[in-house]
C-alpha cells in the first residue's frame, strides 16, 4: 500500500516532529560547517563571511605545507595516538584480567574506585596536577631530585621529556574506564569454558592466555580499529592543558588540533587554520574508511557501516 510522499509525511508527522530538534542541531553545527570548508580555499574577510570572501586557490595550503608545520603536527598527532592505543590497551587489559581473577571483593572495589578517579576530573585539573609535579621552582619532581642530591631539571623547557609524560598521563586518565570495560567483556565470557579448562587440568596462566585473552580479541580489535580511525585527531583538552602555548615544547607536543586552534585564536589566521582543519578532516575520513574496511574483513557484524 503506497501512499506517496505527502501521504507518508502525514502518517509520520509526529515522528518527524520528534526528530526535528536533532535534525536542526546537526544542520547548524555539522552540515553547514561542512560546507564551510570552502574557507580553506578563500581569503577570509569579515565583510564577505564564509561564502562571500574572495577565492585564493591553494595559497592557504601552500603556507601550511611550506612552513614545515604540516609534517611536524601530522607526525606528532599520529605517533602520539599510536602510543596511546598500544600503552592504554595493554594496561587496561592487564588490569581488567587481574580485577577479574583477584578474589577479594573489597580489594577489588577499592582499587577499581581509585583507578576510576582520574576519569572524572577535567583536563584543567590535570593541568594543575602537572604544574604541581613538573614546575621548575616548586614542583614535586624537582624537590625530590634535590632531596636525593641531583640537579633540578627544567621539564617545561625540555621537549624530549614530553612524549613520555603525555603517554603516562593518557594511560593514567583512561585506565579505570578501559579496565572496567574489559572487565565487563571478560565477565560475559561463557563460564563453561573455564569449567571445561579446569577439568582438563589447565593451570591459571593457561586459562588466562588460552581462554580469556583469545575471547577478548573481538573487543580489542573493535576498540583499536575505532581508535585508529581517530588517529589524526588530537585530544585538544589534554595537549592544551598540559602544555598550553609553550612554544619551547612545540617540536614534540604540537598536534593538528592545537595548531588549528592557535592559528585561529592566537594568530587569527583564519585561512590557514581552515586549510589545516580541512587537511585533518580528509585524513580522518580516509582512515575511518580504511579502518571500517578492515573491520568488515575481520567480521562483518562489527563493522560501523
Amino acid at each position, binding site marked *: 500500500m503506497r501512499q506517496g510522499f505527502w501521504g507518508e509525511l502525514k502518517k509520520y508527522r*509526529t515522528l518527524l*516532529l*520528534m*526528530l526535528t*530538534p*536533532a535534525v536542526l542541531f546537526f544542520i547548524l*553545527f*555539522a552540515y*553547514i560547517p*561542512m*560546507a*564551510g570548508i570552502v*574557507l580553506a580555499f578563500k581569503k577570509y574577510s569579515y565583510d564577505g*563571511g*564564509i561564502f562571500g570572501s574572495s577565492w585564493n586557490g591553494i595559497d592557504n595550503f601552500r603556507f601550511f605545507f611550506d612552513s614545515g608545520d604540516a609534517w611536524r603536527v601530522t607526525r606528532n598527532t599520529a605517533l602520539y595516538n599510536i602510543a596511546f592505543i598500544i600503552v592504554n590497551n595493554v594496561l587496561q587489559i592487564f*588490569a581488567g584480567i*587481574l580485577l577479574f*581473577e*583477584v*578474589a577479594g571483593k573489597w*580489594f577489588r572495589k577499592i*582499587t577499581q574506585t*581509585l*583507578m*576510576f*578517579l*582520574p576519569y*572524572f*576530573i*577535567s583536563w*584543567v*585539573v590535570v*593541568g*594543575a*596536577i602537572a604544574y*604541581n*609535579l613538573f614546575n621548575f*621552582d*616548586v614542583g614535586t619532581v624537582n*624537590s625530590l631530585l634535590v632531596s636525593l642530591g641531583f640537579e633540578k631539571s627544567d621539564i617545561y623547557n625540555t621537549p624530549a621529556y614530553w612524549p613520555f609524560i603525555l603517554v603516562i598521563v593518557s594511560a593514567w586518565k583512561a*585506565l579505570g*574506564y578501559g579496565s*572496567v*570495560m574489559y572487565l*565487563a*567483556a571478560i*565477565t560475559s565470557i561463557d563460564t563453561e569454558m573455564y569449567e571445561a579448562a579446569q*577439568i582438563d587440568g589447565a*593451570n*591459571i*596462566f593457561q586459562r588466562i592466555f588460552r581462554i580469556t585473552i583469545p575471547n577478548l580479541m573481538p*573487543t580489542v580489535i573493535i576498540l583499536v580499529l575505532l581508535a585508529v580511525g581517530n588517529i589524526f585527531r588530537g585530544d585538544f*583538552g589534554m595537549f592544551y592543558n598540559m602544555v598550553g602555548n609553550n612554544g619551547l615544547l612545540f617540536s614534540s607536543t604540537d598536534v593538528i588540533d592545537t595548531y*588549528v*586552534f592557535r592559528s*585561529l585564536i592566537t594568530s587569527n589566521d583564519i585561512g590557514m587554520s581552515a586549510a*589545516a582543519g580541512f587537511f585533518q*578532516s580528509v585524513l580522518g575520513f580516509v582512515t*575511518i574508511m580504511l579502518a571500517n574496511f578492515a573491520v568488515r574483513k575481520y567480521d562483518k557484524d562489527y563493522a560501523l*557501516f
Partner: protein
Amino acid sequence: MSTVVSESRAGSQPAGQKIRHSDRILLAVIGYVSLSLLALFCLLPFWLVVSSSLTDETAITMNGFSLIPSTFSVEAYRILFEFPKDMLKAYGVTISVTLIGTVLGLFLTSMTAYVLTRRDFRWRNRFSFFFFFTTLFSGGLVPWYLMIVNYLQLKDTLVVLILPMLLNVFYIIVMKSFMSSIPEAITESAKIDGAGDFRIFILLIVPLSKPALATIGLFIALAYWNDWYNALLFISKSDLMPLQYYLYRMLGNMDGMRKAMMQAGAVVNTNLPTESLKMAMTIVATGPILLAYPFIQRFFVQGLTIGAVKG
C-alpha cells in the same frame, strides 16, 4: 565413554590440584601487588595536590611541593572562603549549565533514539545515516567557530555553553541500541489502544529505559561539568565563566587572581600564598565531583556492563 574419561581424569586430580593451588597463590601475589601499584599511581597525584594546598606558602617556596605538608596551614582555604564571590559565581554558571544541558540533552537524545528504533518508520535508515555521517566528516574548527560567533551571534551568552554540546551521535547510538531491546509488541499494542507516538515515548519507552537514561545522563552531566573548551573559545565576560574555565584562568594568571582578590576586598594582596592557593582552588573546583564520583561510578560500571552483555 564419558564416565571412563572422567574417571581417568579424577585419578590425576590430586597432583593437578597441587599445581593449581600454587599457581593461584602466584597469581594472587601478582594481582594484589600490581593492582595496588596501579591504584596508588592513580591516587598519588591527587594526594599531592591536597597536601600542597594544606602546606604553608614559605615551606613551599623553600622546599617545593611534597607528599606530606612540612608546615601545615589552612591559610589558602581561609583566603578562598573569605572572598568566595567569583568562585561562587563560577559554581552558579556550571551548575545551571549542567542542569539545563543534561535535562534537555537527555530528553532530545532519547527522543531521537526512539524514533530511529521504530521499524515502521520508513525513513529511519536515511535519518540514521544523516546523523552518523557527522562523525565521519566535519568542517573542522574554523567554520564551526564562525557559525557560532558570526552567524548565530552566541558569543558571551549562557546559551553557547549549552547548545553546541547538546547532542552527541555516540550517545544517540548507545541509547538506540538499548531501546531496540525493548519488545516491539509494547509499542504495537499501545498504538492499537490509540496512543500517539509521543505519548508512547513518554509513558512507555522512557520508564523502560531507566538504566540507559541514567548512564547517558551521567555521561552528559560529566561532560558539562568538566567543560572549559567552549568557554575558552566563546566566553570573555567574567560573569559567565564556568568553574573549570575560571580555574584555568586563575592557574595561568596569578596577577589576575591578585586583582580579583583586591577587588573583593582582600588586604593580603602583597604576600598572597599563590602556590598553595592554586592547589586549594583546584581542590575546591574538583570537590563535588570527588565527593560524588564513588556513587556515580557504580552507575557507570553497570551501564558499561549492560553495553558489553548486549554485545
